[in-house]
């Protein structure tokens, strides 16, 4: 345990250190070294915890009211550490090159990056409410500073504001949550909270607070508004860390609170399932409508959080219905998807970063043909695209398979509610999977394939080694988890045991069945790879020396095609976005050409976030307007001010004075 804390402290220390050499080029490298060192050290206890060793919790006195520096590392925490330990060092390395051309000092950014990493690790180990909240906010604040790195751009500042407000609203819910739990348990220590025994009504209230508080961080619809703003605004390696890892702390927090609340009711499970479905389907629908590459990826984070929540909701329902299979596989699938999403989403953001770095634009419709100039980026992005669409043989499929498996094995003809659940999960996942595949066909296809649509794309070049290798490593991890599916599930079981409690014990048989299926999948995936390679080799030898001819694309007889005539991202997604138009509220601007000699015309679509546009912005405006009259009380007249004092005095005297004796 001490080793783990040491691993958290090192990045911070080196981070503080580089603040003093802010302007030096070495700053980011030294800070990154701190991340590597810290994560390396912290990995030791994490691995041993995952291997089944029980680490002694660490208790240090802290004279803050209600606070204690208690740390622990159980299966759940250890598993959630994995993405951090994997992504954070890789993204840090990537960031060193990514930001190398920046003119502003890199010290602060490196410092906050290290603080973000350390605070996430500490958060997972925190076993006291006050400590948890402090680290939680530290994480939010440090990531905020990373988001506003490019603060000379107006949209970045706006994104920072949105993020800060959203995360703070979530934190407010958490403050109340922990205050209530502390009241019930008479302590803010998690151990004691777990024994507090909440009444069902109280527990439900706490659950709602947790969903709001942690959901704002995780990106549950409609609390997701900050994601599509903040992720595009942040530097790409930060987006990778935030989208891949940081939002998962919301999931962790929710799970951790669930372990403290006692027996869940079915309503909680349904709540999460519905949230999961809405986030998943609408998340991907919004992603389809975007043509900013990073914004698209941000919406996919919402979608994947939806998938994770589906799994957790299924697990909760399993607990409520006493169905061990549903419990273990639902939670297992959801939690495994946390790791999987961390890997492919950060890979995608790193890839997007490479594209931005090399072309200077994030607009998909201005890109094209990059795979020819950016081979490594292209291939790794392709791997991640397939993985995030849940396609075998990559990791995304494994976790989605577990959730399907949970849903299908939990279904009972006699219990209509299980059928409804399975319809929701299976139908929802299938739809989400199909739409995600469509979206990434668009993202990869338009960005990397075809011909460059602008000069930005035409002059692209491959990025440097420090940016390339993290992507390759992550792509390897995508494939590795896909091929070693059973091993990955073994990794997640300790975490599931923490969440599922007693439910985990009686499910050995269904776990064994799932394991057999996963083994089958692993073999099938390996077979698939072999088949592809084999067929490709055969295909290469088939022509037997006949020459390949290169020519233009079939143009249907039109002799002068230009790259601008290629299908664009917007047009590619248009049939699907039309299906969801009532939710998306896509705005179209422009006119179609008319007359015999049509003038040049433009057409543009824009899909702002519906929750922001139709929920939060009007709400904020309403509050603002209704508060405006109050400001009239301070209009500068001293007479009125004196009157206030007199009125208050008289009213109080009338109300209270001499009333009792």
């Amino acid at each position, binding site marked *: 345990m001490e080793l783990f804390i040491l691993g958290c402290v090192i990045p911070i220390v080196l981070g503080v250190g580089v603040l003093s050499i802010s302007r030096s080029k070495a700053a980011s490298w030294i800070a990154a070294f701190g991340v590597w060192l810290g994560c390396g050290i912290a990995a030791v206890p994490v691995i041993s915890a995952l291997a089944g060793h029980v680490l002694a919790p660490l208790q240090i006195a802290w004279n803050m009211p209600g606070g204690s520096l208690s740390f622990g590392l159980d299966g759940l925490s250890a598993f959630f550490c994995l993405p951090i330990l994997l992504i954070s060092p890789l993204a840090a390395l990537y960031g060193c090159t990514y930001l190398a051309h920046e003119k502003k000092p890199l010290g602060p950014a490196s410092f906050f990056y290290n603080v973000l990493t350390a605070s996430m690790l500490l958060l997972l180990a925190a076993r006291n409410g006050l400590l948890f909240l402090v680290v939680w906010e530290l994480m939010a604040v440090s990531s905020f500073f990373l988001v506003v790195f490019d603060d000379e751009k107006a949209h970045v500042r706006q994104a920072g504001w949105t993020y800060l407000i959203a995360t703070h609203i979530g934190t407010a819910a958490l403050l109340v949550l922990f205050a209530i739990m502390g009241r019930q348990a008479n302590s803010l220590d998690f151990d004691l909270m777990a024994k507090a025994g909440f009444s069902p009504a109280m527990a439900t209230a706490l659950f709602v607070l947790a969903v709001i508080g942690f959901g704002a961080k995780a990106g549950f619809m409609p609390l997701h508004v900050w994601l599509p703003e903040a992720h595009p605004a942040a530097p790409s390696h930060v987006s990778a860390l935030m989208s891949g890892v940081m939002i998962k702390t919301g999931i962790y927090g929710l799970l951790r609170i669930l372990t403290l609340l006692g027996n869940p009711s079915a309503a909680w499970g349904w709540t999460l399932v519905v949230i999961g479905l809405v986030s998943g389907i609408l998340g991907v629908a919004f992603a389809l409508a975007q043509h900013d590459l990073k914004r698209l990826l941000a919406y996919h984070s919402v979608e994947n959080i939806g998938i994770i929540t589906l799994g957790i909701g299924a697990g909760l329902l399993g607990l409520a219905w006493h169905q061990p299979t549903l419990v273990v596989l639902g939670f297992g699938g959801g939690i495994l998807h946390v790791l999987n999403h961390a890997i492919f989403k950060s890979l995608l953001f790193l890839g997007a970063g490479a594209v931005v770095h090399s072309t200077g634009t994030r607009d998909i419709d201005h890109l094209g043909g990059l795979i020819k100039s950016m081979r490594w980026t292209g291939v790794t992005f392709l791997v991640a695209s397939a993985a995030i669409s849940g396609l075998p043989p990559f990791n995304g499929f494994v976790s989605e398979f577990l959730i399907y498996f949970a849903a299908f094995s939990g279904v009972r003809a006699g219990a209509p509610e299980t059928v409804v659940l399975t319809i929701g999960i299976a139908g929802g996942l299938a739809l989400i999977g199909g739409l995600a595949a469509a979206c990434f066909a668009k993202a990869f296809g338009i960005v990397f394939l075809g011909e460059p649509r602008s000069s930005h794309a035409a002059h692209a070049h491959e990025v440097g080694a420090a940016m390339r290798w993290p992507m390759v490593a992550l792509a390897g991890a995508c494939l590795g988890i896909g091929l070693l599916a059973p091993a990955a599930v073994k990794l997640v079981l300790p975490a599931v045991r923490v969440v599922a409690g007693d439910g985990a014990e009686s499910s050995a048989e269904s776990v064994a069945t799932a394991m057999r299926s996963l083994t089958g999948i692993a073999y099938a995936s390996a077979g698939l790879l072999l088949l592809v390679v084999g067929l490709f080799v055969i295909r290469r030898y088939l022509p037997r020396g006949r020459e390949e001819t290169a020519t233009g694309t079939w143009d249907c007889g039109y002799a002068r095609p230009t790259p601008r005539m290629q299908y664009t991202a917007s047009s590619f997604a248009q049939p699907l976005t039309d299906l969801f138009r009532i939710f998306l509220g896509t705005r179209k601007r422009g006119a179609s050409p008319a007359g015999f000699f049509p003038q040049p015309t433009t057409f543009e679509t824009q899909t702002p976030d519906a929750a922001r546009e139709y929920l939060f912005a009007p709400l904020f405006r309403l509050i603002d307007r209704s508060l405006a009259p109050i400001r009239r009380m*301070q209009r500068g007249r001293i007479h009125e001010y004196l009157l206030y004092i007199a009125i208050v005095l008289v009213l109080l005297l009338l109300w209270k004075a001499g009333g009792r004796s």
Partner: protein
Amino acid sequence: MTLLLLTILLPAVAGTASYFIRPHRWRRLLWGTTAALHLALSVTAALPMNATPLDHWIGMDSLSAIFLVLTSLLFLGATVYGIGYVAREPVTGQLDFEDGSLFKNEPESIFTGAILLLLAAMTLAILSRHLALQWVAIEATTLASAPLIYYHQNRRSLEAAWKYLILCSVGIAVALLGIFFIRMTIQDSPHELTLATLLERASTLNHKWLSTAFIFMLVGYGTKMGLAPMHTWLPDAHSEAPSPVSAMLSGALLNCAFLGILRVQQICAAAGMASFGGDLLILFGLVSMGLAGVFILRQADYKRMLAYSSVEHMGILALGVGLGGLGLFGSLLHAVNHSIVKAMLFLTAGNILSRFHTKDTTKIQGVRDALPISGALWIAGFLAVTGSPPFGTFISEFTILRAVVDQGRWVVAALYVVFLLLAFVGMAGIVLRMALGRSEVNRVREPLTTVLSPLVFAVIAILLGVYLPGPLADKLHDAAQLLGGMAK
């Protein structure tokens, strides 16, 4: 005892003397030395071995020890900043950057003398254990600070000073009535109006008089402390005063009035009437938080924004004290945190003002770009004052929330959180818009005197967020105990 007297007399003598010292250099030296000596004296007096009996007119219990050292510390910070400030201010007339009129600062000797006398008055207000004496001292703080507010002698500062003087004087007069009523509670025999007497005879006090007294003193000292809706002078005065003065007003002077209320509440609690005062304090606390939040939300002037934030925090303090129990501890801790953070913010605001020459938030962009240190401090201060970790304000605000929840006052808890959010949203918009982005003025190297104090305060604010020094914790527990609360 002599130590305490010395603590009061030192700034009083130095203040009087500085009216007569002609050379700037000597006067500034006297100012600096006094500030440093005062801090040394306060700390020495607060040491356990220098404990004094508490039944005299002046004396030091844990409560006053906390506030005295805090005030002294802030004063030193403001001094370091202020000496540089007055040195940079032109002695001849200058153009007002808002309405373009010509104005001339008041003589530096008056400024220095007033600020030292203010310190003396505050010290007396904190140390006095005689309620009427405390009243005299608190009224004296008003008088000493009025010249500080109209240091610039331009139209707005005169207007602010006028409102400050009138409103606070009226408020304080009301408080005096309250003191009369307290005297009535022990009508049966001629005793001195010291805390010791009152506490000793607490069980025999007449509740009817006490409740009336409490109302008068709450309204009276509440005016001075800035509880809404009696706070109306506060944004004017705090925004128009020179920044080191604003820092003192917000960070230290409000605490003195707060202490006045605390003393009455102490008596009430001892007399078994804690909940009577508590409910009123909670009410005023919430009203202050809510109103301040509303005015922060659309604030055009960043110093006014800070002033409203002070109103909000005074509301939090009142709320915490009103709750009693854990809330008392939280409230006292919050008083410490808030003072340090607010002083830091006002000093930083002074740096921004002197560089950008406007208080209009919409006209400022890129503070971080133009003034790297002040910009960082500005954001840090915003986070601190809105209660984000790792700053100490978070701990204290959360402790107060726990106190609310522990008592099962759900409506109060909900309002508390909503009002905190309101202030956060309001300040976030303003501060971020100011701090981020590219600035139109050039980057300059900031003089050490302008950033040293706020930097030190920032470090203290962070330290208090992660570690509570043992002696301070003991004093806080002790003080909470005095007020009738048990701290967990």
